[in-house]
Structures are given as structure tokens and as C-alpha cells.
């Protein structure tokens, strides 16, 4: 069954079981591989994307639930790593293996969009993504730095 999905501002017609998790439609049908699979049960957040600006775990959302809504993946944040959140993650050299970082950045971006100057408590409440290398110490600093960079842009 075919349905339409809008990903990073581009409309895609997808011919697949509409109950397929959004993650696999993004990766296998649309061909955007920055969004990662890790647990498959909505626990770790490696698959985090935005639907209408809200951070969601795409492994646990049926693709059809996202039809007609604006989906943003890591590839839609910027084409060249120039978004303030990406600049901040680079400045702090935050990623290690990097596998969780797409999801981490999507969560951080949703947080910053909702709370432009988050406190540590806000970060604790919002950033529920798992990182096995444990980049948390630098991710926290990077989110604060990103808030500064975004404030300077406003």
C-alpha cells in the first residue's frame, strides 16, 4: 500500500506496509541512514527523529502515523554540520563511537527549541537517550554551548 511521507521537506511516496516502523521506512525506503537502529523497543533513542518538531523514537512509531506530518531527521538539521547544535557537539568533541549521536542531537534540538536556555535539570528531564561510550559529560556542555550559540544568532 502506498502512502506519502514528508521527510526534511521532501515528499516521498512509499510503497510498504504502513505498520512498518517509521525508522525502517526512513532507512530502507527513503535511504537516509543517519537515523540508527539499536534496541527496537523505543528505549535507547538512537532512532530519534522529529515529527512536527517533537522528538520521537522512530523504531516504535508506525510509518502511517507520520503521514501528513513534517518529519525531520539528522540529515535535515543542516547539510554541512553548520547548525549551532552540531557546531557545539564538534567544539566539545562530544562523539566517541558516534552511533547514538544523531538521536542525541535530535533530542537536544527538540529541547532547545522548547526551552532555549535549558538548566541542567531540564537537560536531565529531556535527554533520555542512551550512550554506551558515555559522552554525557560533553553532551551536557555541548547543549549549554549550543544554547549560547543560538542566542547569539537571535
Amino acid at each position: 500500500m502506498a502512502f506519502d511521507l514528508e521527510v526534511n521537506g521532501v515528499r516521498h511516496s512509499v510503497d510498504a506496509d504502513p505498520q512498518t516502523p517509521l525508522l525502517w521506512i526512513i532507512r530502507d525506503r527513503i535511504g537516509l541512514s543517519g537515523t540508527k537502529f539499536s534496541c527496537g523497543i523505543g528505549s535507547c533513542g538512537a532512532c530519534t527523529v522529529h515529527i512536527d518538531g517533537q522528538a520521537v523514537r522512530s523504531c516504535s512509531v508506525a510509518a502511517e502515523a507520520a503521514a501528513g506530518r513534517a518529519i525531520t531527521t539528522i540529515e535535515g538539521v543542516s547539510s554541512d554540520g553548520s547548525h549551532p547544535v552540531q557546531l557545539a557537539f564538534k567544539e566539545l568533541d562530544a562523539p566517541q563511537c558516534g552511533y547514538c549521536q544523531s538521536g542525541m542531537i535530535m533530542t537536544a534540538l527538540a529541547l532547545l527549541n522548547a526551552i532555549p536556555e535549558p538548566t541542567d535539570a531540564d537537560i536531565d528531564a529531556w535527554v533520555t537517550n542512551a550512550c554506551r561510550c558515555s559522552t554525557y559529560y560533553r553532551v551536557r556542555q555541548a547543549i549549554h554551548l549550543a544554547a549560547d550559540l543560538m542566542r547569539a544568532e537571535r
Partner: protein
Amino acid sequence: MTQRTGVDRREFLAMAAAAKGAFVMGFWLPPRPASAQQRDGAVWYEDPEAPEINAWIVIDPDDTVTIRIAQTELGQGVWTSNAMMVSEELQCDWSRVRPEYASANRDAREMAPEWTLEVMGDGAQDPTGGGEPSFGNRAPTGVFGIPDSLYRRMRTNAAASVKDGRYYLQLAGAEARERLLLAAANEWDVPVRELSARDSIVTHAPSGRTTTYGAIAHLAAVTPHPNPEAITIKPPSEWTLMGTEQKNLDVPMKVTGETVYAIDVSLPGMKWAAVKTCPVYGGDVAAYDFEAIRDLPGVQSAVQLPIPDPALTRGRIFSGGVAVVADTWYEAKTALDRMPINWTVPPENAGFNTDNMRQALLDSLDARGTVRVDEGDVDAGFAAAAQIVEATYSTPYLPRARMEPGNATVLVTDERVDIWIGDQSPQETRFSASQITGIPEQQVHLHMCHLGGGFGRNGNGPQAEQAITIANANRGTPIHMLWTREEDFIGTTYRAMGMARLKAGLDEDGWPLALEVRIAMQDDGFGPTASFGGASRYHAPHYRFSNHETDFHVPVGTRRGVSQAAHEFYRETFIDELARAAGRDPYLYRRELIARTDIPYKDDMIRALDMAAEMSGWGTPLPAGTARAIGLEERGAETGRSATISAMVHTVSISPDGRVRLERVDVAHETGFGLVNPLSVRKQIEGQITWFYNDAMHQACTIANGRIVENNFDTFSLSRIDEDPPEINIRFFETDHWLIGMGHDRATSVQSGIGDAIFQITGKRFRDLPFSQHDLSWG
């Protein structure tokens, strides 16, 4: 300069030819038509427009320097630190350095240059501070690296990439630099001694002439060095790049999602495979009903997977299973979930559970065991003691649980095998591919990808062997096998479940007269003598240490920290218990007991303790419900050749309802002869603090009816940012011996530190990890 995701461009072209025009989605594509580079008879790695100086170094006309990395980037920074070691000697422009993976195929075809073989191996006396490659005997499986193959050690393990590779990586840079200088000298007809090189520019000071590496690389490529054995490497005092904090070269592509991990590899015509293996190790498929799922969407075929040949998995017995091949992975996985499978399970393996395994370990502690050290007369020491302290500890089975589930893409034809994989042991995987397919290793091509986490050589699980088996049954079709998270918990190896009984006899002042350490673990567990072998780190006139082994069915292997992590939990907790029994300060008690030993590098251990204590404000008042604990972390000092030494103070708060928070960690870490990239060292320490926080607080895999119970992140917990310490202070102090490595066994003291803080705050001493299983409330 084009940023690339990792695959070697020349190897890519060879692969593209083999796969008849196949391409890899997301990989860098050559700027020139591939046909222009495919010259008849040319070996794939010879590219006239980008001359190779030696097997590690290629220099493009635009001065881009490509450095081949024989280890795997898994977040530890090797992509950058290995490149730094080569660049230091090459004296090239660091801003134009671009790493790529060394070819495991070429490693099967070529021998190492002779000048890389004779390296210093003179312990702490080596004036250059160069590395000491630790090769075992030449083993065809490549398990220990291959001493004389081109890239020698391609494995990534034991936190040893810097130590094991440094000497010959620096030599590779120096050899290339000398040949670039020779080429310029020949070109200008001047003595080479009048030339200097810096930032990829060669200068002839007397005439003021300059040229660039890019301009003379094609000449250097055909200019042999007359006496390469005479080339020496720079001692740490002469380093200009090594020792500086450099941001990691792989990071920019990791914030855009462009990095291609193995899971992201996609080839034309590729099919996906999902796998289910028997959840009881040693079990196999009795029957399965492919007909029941044959007509489901996308389904192509099923492949039965035998129990992987133990000769390819270091003797470990995994399970047999079935793979379903489909157009997409989700289709394969969905169909596999609906396919009836019956297992044949060895009854003795199905009889294991955590309780009876724990009892077996306890029973083994009562046996004599294998005595490793027996100094003095321990029984006489106990008899003379004023006070006996005895404690029994346990640590559970622990998996690596890297974020990227096991996967590999394999294309087998009748002529060659191509494998796209993130792998910590490519020489071993090359051997497996050859054994399974019958195709010679010289025709096996590994296309290495960055790993989504490593934490212990993942080559020792059967991810590659399963994928090769499926692809071998589908020759001509690229097969991408991907494990579910649950399957990843079956396909990994575990750190062995362990128990320890420590007993000390203290004199009237609280100092140990006798110390006995009994360690029980599975008989093939890694590092049984870690932390206790050779000699006691804390002085006791009478010391006995023994191993007590038991036979279990869980495949155990290398996991970050290996046995040292468990053993330092036992040791440091027991020292805390002794200090409490003696009524002495745990920092000063440790300090005195180390001072009384004659173990090598004991002064460095004392410096670490002193620095960490001073950094933490040791002894200054803390609020109620908050406590400090100190721990020593040490590896290998007993050899007198090398060591890694650090000490940490952990400031821990516990709410009355039992909520633990690691508030602050103060870290004193040695430099050895010199850290290559101190920024990566900081990141590794930060990461390991959380790693061992998880070991201390949350993580355990239990066994029921022979199966691993916790098999996803809902039951196997990973801490999140809200539990991470808000303050980490790291200071380095200089020492003058080889550092073994610091990527896997630092911050083990988080375990004993939280345990002792729990004791200080709640009055309760817990000796079984993880602590979250205990009632930590107080007040």
C-alpha cells in the same frame, strides 16, 4: 580535500569492478571516472596520481596526506592518534591529513617492510619511549596479530593501539619523510643534510628554495632509502604534534549522520538477513518450517546456520540457528518471528541458572584451587593476627552491549569474498571467510567501517561467521545480516561471572600480617590473575593468591576492563573494609601499605593517591548523606616493564530513600612517557567513569534455564545523562615508563567507591554487584 567515510578508495575501485558496477550508498565516490583508474595489470593500490610513499602513507599532488589506519575506530580515537604518530615524524601539514583504513587484503598478500620489524623492546630503558608490540607466535587465525604481515597487528584490543603500534607507526612517518627529503635533494642536486621539512614543505635554506610534499611525492615514491634500518624515531622531548590535544578527525561526520557504519552499507541487489539462534548456548535447530512464512512480503529464502566452528571463535561454543533472507530487514525479521523453530538443547546447559552457578563458584572457593602466589606462611600469619577480616564478593555476567547491533554485509562469488563490517579483528575475520568459503585469504577483501561501539574484540562473537555462511549459500548476492538487540545479547561474549573471598589477618595496629585472595570464575575467563598476580599491591608479609575454576556454558571473552574491573572491585573494597576494621583513613591506609611494598612504580601509585586526595579536598566536611571514597587503579606494574596507574576520589550522595548520585570524580592519571592525544584520554576516562558506574549500579545478566535473561535495554539498564556526574576533574602527572593503555580499565574504582560511600552513609556493606539490587535507604 574530500572527506570520506572510511573505505579505501583504491580498494573501493577493486570492489566496484568485482561487483560489476556496484556502488556503496553513502561512500565517497572518486572524482575521476573509475575506468580511468582501472589500468590493465595494475594492482589496485597503485594510483599514479596519488603516489604511495610506503604502505601507510599516500600523498596527493594537492598535499592531502592519506594515512592508513590498521586499527578500528570505535570511539576511542585511534583514527586520530594513529595518524598523529605517523604525522609527527612525517612532519606534514596536520590540517590536510585524512585517515583511511589499511587493507586487510593487502595484509594477506604482502610482508612487513624489514625496517618495521626490528623495534626496540627494552622496557622502561627505551630512551625513545617507543611502543613494545606484543605479538604472540605466528598464528594463522590472526588472533594475536601476525608478526610479519604488512600491517602486523590489525586487531584493536587491550587498550594497546598506541603502545603496540607506536614504534613502527613513527618509523613509517620517518621513513617517508627521509625519502621525500632525498627526492628533493636529488631534484635540486644538493646534499640532503641541507634540507629541512615542516608542514609538508621542504626548504633548502642556503638557496631559499622550497617545494611541497605533493610536488615531489611521485619522486619519493620511486626513491628508496639507502639504509632504512638507520632511521630512528623522535623521543618524547622532540614531539610537537604528539602530546597536544587534537579534536578527533572522525567527529565532524558523526554530527551530520554521514558516517557509514556497517549497518548503513547498502549494495545494489542486496538482500537482508535476520537471524535467530538457540538462546541456550550449545543448542541447535531441530526443525523449522520455512513453508509457513514463504509467502510473506519480501521473503526470499531461509538458511540454516550450524553452530559456528569453534576453531573460528577461539573455542567458544555459540548456538546454531536459522536466517531468513528478505528484501528488507524488517520483512526478514517479521517473517522470522512468525516462523516455527524447534531447538535441540543440551540438557546440562539448560540446567544452569544464576543460583546454581553462584553455588558452584562458592564451592570452588573452598577447594585448593591453582595457587599463583604463595609468599611467606599465610596460615601462620592468620594464627598470629589480632583480628581476622573475611569477605566474599560477587560480580555478574556482563555483556558489552555496544549500540550498533552485530551485522555485516558479505558478497561471495566463486573468485572472491567482500565483507563490509565494523570489526576489531579483521585478520581473524579474513581467516574465517577463507575457511568457510574455501576461497584463499588473498581473495578476501574487508571493507572496514567505523564501529558503533566496541568494548571488547567483537570478532570473537560469530557475527562475521554467520554473515559469511548466509552469503556463501547465496553466492553472487550481497547479503546484509543484522542481529536484533535480543540476538546481539546471544551473539556476544560475556565477562565471566565471578566470586572472590578475601581474608586478612591484621596485627594490633590494624596492618595486614597475612592476606589471602581466592578468585573463582569460569575456567576460560579472561585475565584470572589480573590485579593480584605477581605480588600484592598492598603490603602483607604473608600473601597467597589462588584461582578457582568452574566449567560453565556461557561463552566468555574480552569485555572492557576484562577481569581487572571485577578484581579491582574486590581488592579496593576489601582494602576499605580493612581500613575501617583498623580504624584508619582509607587514603592514608592505602598509602602506607603501598609504601611498605617493593612493587615497581609504587612511588607513582602513591603520587596518584596523593594527587587525587588533594584534588578532592579529602578530609574536608561534606553535607549529611554525602561521602568520599578513594581507589587505586593499576595494571601491569608487577612486570617492571610498563604499567598504567591512576587514582580517583568519588564523591557520592545518597538520598534517604536510597537514590545514589555520583556527584564528582577527581582523577589523577599518569602520562607514562607521554600521552599521544590527551583529549582522547580525557574522553576515555569520562566514558569509563560512566561505564563502571553502570557496572556498579545497574548491570547484570542473569541465567535461567541456561538462557541469558536480560536481553534488551528495558531489562539491561544503561544509565542516562541524569545519573552522570556533573563534575569530573582530570589531572595528569608525569611518569617515565611505558603506559600500557588507558582505554578499558580506568575508573574501575567507581565500583568500590560507591560501595564504600554506601557503607559510610547507610552503615550497610554490600558485596554483590550491582548495588541497585540492594536496599540503599537510610535515616
